[in-house]
């Protein structure tokens, strides 16, 4: 058997037996239930959001709602949980010395580990997708072929997004010797990238465009029977552009834009669009991906960069 496949096979076998994998799967199951419940609710609320969700299926609505952002927050934890001790635990337990004393190159070891984790993550995401579709069918939510195609089209991007955090975890696991310390570092880093940084970016962008957003020309408008403070369109767009620029280094920005595009949301959603018509438009998956190619490239780069650093560092490390 090829050394990479041998290591990958062992890795999948061991990872599928870890508690952390089952904890994340349980959260996935709960999310799938929550998502399907949200779909049912959105069906009953259709008249209220008629204009906003015009022409969209419940599945499209679900994957462009808070469910999608919950998923984009959870996937990093799946990647990080599988990556944070991928190397240091083997060093700590001495198993790396056993394996690397066998006829294989160091890069085959790290590639095998990476491949094994990728398979585990793929299995986890696929399981979640299958569960979501099954629950939707069980609860009577209509699921069409187009919905399933769109969902499957998101798989490579959900995978690459999760892999970004797997390789960040790998990197931590190479630099931090103790798995317990590495876990804390990984959690803090993921929380910062996923939650803290977008908040900071929002505050900074708001501070930069405060004058425009709060100017005297701002209007009060009625949306869904509630009074909302509407900034002028130009001010909103400037704020939005700055925010997007700042969030460019956050993987979730690109992931959410790619998922949104696959599920048919308009490429640029301005204030006027948000309150003036549907956020969806009819187009093929290929067209959607063309619209977000920059985001796809950014995701690939964000995955490759930490992987290259982890790889280089591992190749030169003393494995005591």
């Amino acid at each position, binding site marked *: 058997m090829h050394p990479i496949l041998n290591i990958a096979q062992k890795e999948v076998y061991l990872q599928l037996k870890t508690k952390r994998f089952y904890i994340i799967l349980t959260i996935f199951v709960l999310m799938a239930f929550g998502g399907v419940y949200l779909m049912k609710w959105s069906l009953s609320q259709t008249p209220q959001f008629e204009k906003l969700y015009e022409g969209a299926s419940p599945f499209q609505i679900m994957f462009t709602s808070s469910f999608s952002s919950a998923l984009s927050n959870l996937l990093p934890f799946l990647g990080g949980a599988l990556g944070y001790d991928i190397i240091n635990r083997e060093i700590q337990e001495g198993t790396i010395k*056993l394996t690397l004393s066998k006829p*294989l190159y160091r890069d085959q070891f790290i590639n095998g580990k990476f491949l094994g984790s990728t398979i585990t993550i793929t299995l986890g995401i696929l399981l979640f997708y299958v569960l979501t579709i099954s629950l939707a069918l069980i609860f009577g939510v209509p699921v069409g072929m187009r919905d399933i195609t769109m969902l499957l089209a998101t798989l490579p991007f959900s995978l690459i997004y999760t892999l970004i955090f797997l390789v960040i975890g790998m990197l931590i696991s190479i630099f931090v010797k103790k798995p317990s310390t590495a876990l804390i570092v990984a959690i803090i880093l993921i929380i910062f990238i996923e939650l803290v940084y977008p908040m900071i970016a929002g505050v900074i962008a708001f501070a930069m465009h405060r004058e425009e957003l709060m100017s005297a020309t701002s209007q009060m408008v009625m949306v869904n029977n509630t009074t909302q403070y509407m900034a002028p369109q130009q001010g909103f767009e400037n704020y939005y552009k700055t925010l997007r620029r700042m969030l460019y280094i956050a993987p979730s920005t690109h992931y959410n834009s790619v998922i949104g595009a696959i599920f048919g949301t308009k490429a640029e959603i301005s204030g006027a669009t948000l309150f003036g018509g549907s956020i969806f438009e009819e187009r093929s998956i290929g067209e959607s991906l063309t619209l977000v190619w920059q985001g796809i490239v950014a995701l690939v780069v964000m995955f490759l960069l930490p992987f290259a650093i982890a790889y280089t560092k591992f190749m030169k490390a003393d*494995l005591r």
Partner: protein
Amino acid sequence: MYAIEIENLTKKYGELKAVDGLTLNVEKGCVFGFLGPNGAGKTTTILSMLGLIIPDSGNIRILGHDVFREPIKVKERVGYLPENATVYDELTAWRNLEFFANFYDMDRSEKEKRIEELLKMVGLWDVRYRKAKTFSKGMKQRLLLAQALINDPEVLILDEPTSGLDPEGAHLVKSIVKEEAEKGKTVFFSSHILSEVEELSDKVGILVGGRLKALGTLEDIKKQFMELEGYEIKIEAKQALPEFEFDGIIRVERINERKAIIFARDDIREQISDYLSKKDITLINLEIEEPSLEDVFLKTIYKKEG
């Protein structure tokens, strides 16, 4: 032909020189005991031999292949038992060995036959489907030994192989080392158990502070030690012993009037015998007290520390 050739190996961890210009050759078929106190650089040397540690300078060749340039050719013919390691706890004994066997070019039946043979040899055949996490330390060590032998290696590198083992386990390890040596395999093992090194080794190296302080067969090392430290000559006569006053004597320790120990710079037994016969004293015993490996080892360390 040498099985292991280490040339001018140096490895630093920050300011600390773990191994300092080590040069060492081990002949094919030799059982080499690598002695040294904790932190002497034994494990660093062993890990460098397997390419797990990248030295700052020096070359290592095993069976004629450079460890860093041709790692696969080396690893195909080497078996390694690390110190303080464990097997994959979530895998069964069988699955552990199967995982390690998969790295070698063996067909399925050959692999299964070898795994069965090894599990029986180390006494784990009956528990082959039990997860390693349920094993005692001794059982895990035996499984580790089995993985080191999975490829029927020509060179066996063992780092503290009996560390933490019960007497039965230690006996098993020693008998396996002897068996491998009888088959003509080269065994390189580190240990701090002197009796074990004395029992198993054809050749010994003593590493202190990253430097090789003694190298050779046990006899050679003891001889070198005696030449350096002096000879201890036990003497017993029928009559009372006279005063010893001639060149080469460092001091005389009298046990009683007929028995004494003479500490001398050289082997002066002949001179003593002549001297006593001239004085009509009949000798009962005149022999050199050979230093034990422990004496050699401890004095070598203390000399360094002193």
